[in-house]
């Protein structure tokens, strides 16, 4: 099982790398879904079965579908891929790469000083998560619901004028 974790971790990293390097948006999206599914496997292997299901259903399912819809609405054609390719010259990677490398080194170094131990591998099932959510985290759940409502209203309000614009566009 541990091997499965490492394999899926490798898949996730590679897929994510591909996500940020592709010039076609739809390709990137598919790689990201792949990465999310690999993450879901990792969650499952770690014993977090509930979130494993959530990743697949909500992240890879609902949110990514939202992306796909928007991409469709924006109607990006092949010229957009050319544009992306033109923008991704090698030198733009240097600065962010160095910054991230620095941060990674610091992260690895600071993590290397501790040995917390290993994960237990015990399954923490949906029942426990549900009990926690609607027990001690009840207030946070309420707040999350408010957040979702705000997101809903915001999206509705912001998206209103755009629809008419989309209609007019041939």
């Amino acid at each position: 099982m541990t091997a499965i974790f490492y394999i899926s971790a490798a898949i996730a990293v590679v897929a994510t790398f591909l996500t940020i390097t592709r010039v076609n948006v739809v390709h990137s999206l598919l790689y990201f879904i792949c990465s999310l599914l690999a993450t879901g496997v990792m969650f499952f292997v770690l014993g977090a079965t509930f979130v494993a299901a959530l990743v697949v259903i909500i992240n890879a399912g609902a949110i990514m579908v939202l992306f796909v819809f928007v991409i469709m609405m924006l109607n990006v054609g092949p010229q957009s891929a050319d544009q992306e390719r033109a923008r991704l010259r090698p030198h733009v990677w240097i600065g962010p790469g160095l910054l991230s490398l620095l941060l990674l080194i610091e992260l690895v170094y600071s993590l290397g000083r501790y040995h917390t131990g290993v994960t237990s591998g015990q399954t923490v099932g949906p029942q426990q998560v549900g009990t926690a959510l609607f027990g001690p985290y009840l207030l946070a759940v309420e707040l999350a619901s408010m957040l979702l409502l705000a997101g809903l209203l915001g999206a509705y309000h912001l998206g209103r004028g755009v629809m008419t614009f989309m209609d007019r566009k041939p």
Partner: protein
Amino acid sequence: MLSLLWLVPILPLVGFAILAVTAGQLARKAVSVIAVGAVSLSALIAIGITVAYTITAPAGTVYSQTLWQWMRVGNFAPAVALHLDALSMTMMVVVAFVSALIHIYSTGFMADDTGYSRFFAYMNLFVGAMLTLVLADNLLLLYLGWEGVGLCSYLLIGFWYRDPDNVRAALKAFFVTRIGDTAFAIGIFLLFTSLGTLNIPAVLDEISTYAPGSTLPTAAAALLLVGAMAKSAQLPLQTWLPDAMAGPTPVSALIHAATMVTAGVYLIARMHTLFVMAPAVLLAVAIIGAVTQLVASFSALTQYDIKRILAYSTISQIGYMFLALGVGAWAAAIYHFGTHAFFKAALFLGAGVVIKMLDEEHDIFKMGGLRHRYPLTFWAFLFAALTLAAVPPLTITFNSKDLILNQAFLSKGGRGLWILGLIGTFLTAAYTFRMVFVVFFGPAQSRPEKTPARSMVAPFVVLAFLGAIAGIPELLTAIFGSQNLSSFLRSALPGPTRDFPSADGPWLFQLIYVATALAGIAVAYLLYERAPQYTRSVVSTSVGSWLHRWWFADWGFDWLYQKLFVGPYVVLARINRNDVVDLFYKGLALISRVINGLLSSTVNGNVRWYVAAVAGGAVIVVGLVVIL
């Protein structure tokens, strides 16, 4: 009668308050009545107090009157209290009386001036401050009066403020006296921190418990001496007085001859116990006085502005007073102060009359032959001049200077000072009569039409007359053996009494003085009346012209101070034109602006740039966590 003492300084201040509040709205007549009335009333009360005091002296010969407690700060509780003894009473009556006469004179002299009300407001304030100074019971109140007269002096020198030269002279007087005032203030602080009181009798009592010549009395006396030197225009701080003649002539007569400039003499006499405790400083007082009177006499010989001659003469006469103080002859100094106040004020008023009649002409060589046109002025001026030169029996006040010289001669090691003083006597007679001969004798240079107002001539004549007869109280001893002024003053100023070993001594020395003075007059007569061409030939030789220029420029003191202090200061100011200290703040502003520019250039609206900044911050913070 004595209980009316508080009215003496208050009345002029009330007059000042009325004139200041009305701010020139009153008619000239009303201004005259208020100003002259206030000072005259004050003078009458002062005379009444003097009479009452001399008839029945109060217990302990001191009358003090506490008006109110000024303030209370911890143990420090100075009172506004007046202290009347023989010394302050003599000063008070002379100041009040001369002030009243000069106020009357001013109504004539300033009749056409636009600043009539302003002038009298300042004059009243001056008289109030001077009387406060004289009557003060503690050093703080004395200092208040001291600063008050300094302020009035500044205001009145620059009275005609539209002329930049007058303003410059006023500032010069203010700055130079400020040096002394600062030293005086430090001296007061020193006395207070060491003795814990500023009440003058208490300070003198405390100080007499110190060993003579120990540090505290010496330091305090030296600081007070610097204050007195600046106020009384003694070497080396005398440079302001000749320039102070820029003010109206009554101001020169009242402030810069009769009263304020002698405040230094009064201060030293008042604090005489302190100075006795500091023999080194006392010696310095004597030397300063002797040298000053000589230096100023030489300068007076070369001046041609009548007021400047009188100014140098004032410096020189105050030098005599300092000499008297320095040899411990307190009473002689105060006696000379009194006579000097009369005759020098008279000379100034006479000069004022002449100047006024000749339309602001100050140059004595453009006057000449005025004795026929203004006989009364001439005779009064002549008598005042004779009093200054000390020629008996035409003047009875001849011995005020002679007493000083006698005391100098009799004091230990005072022979050198005596010789300097004797040369000064000769020079005094010479420069005085040079002025008299040039102004009133010789060919008439102009035909003035005006006649002086009676309000101007009368005070002038009265002062000249009083100056000539002011010696009577002192001479009474010699003739009748009754109490004279010196022994009267001794109740407040216990000093050494030195007498000549033989009874012939006084007469012999008196002869020497008279002969010297007559010699001076004779030289002046020869050089300026009989043979002026000889004077010209002496001045035209290279040494003569060099000496003339040197003395004319006050021995180069102004030049020296210009080079030593004013020049470097101006250079520093020029260097500092952009304010060196400001550079620091300008630098701060510049740094802020640079940082502001840098920070605002980071706010470029580019989202990815912000993200990069957050990431950079994370790198730094995590890096710090890792390192620390």
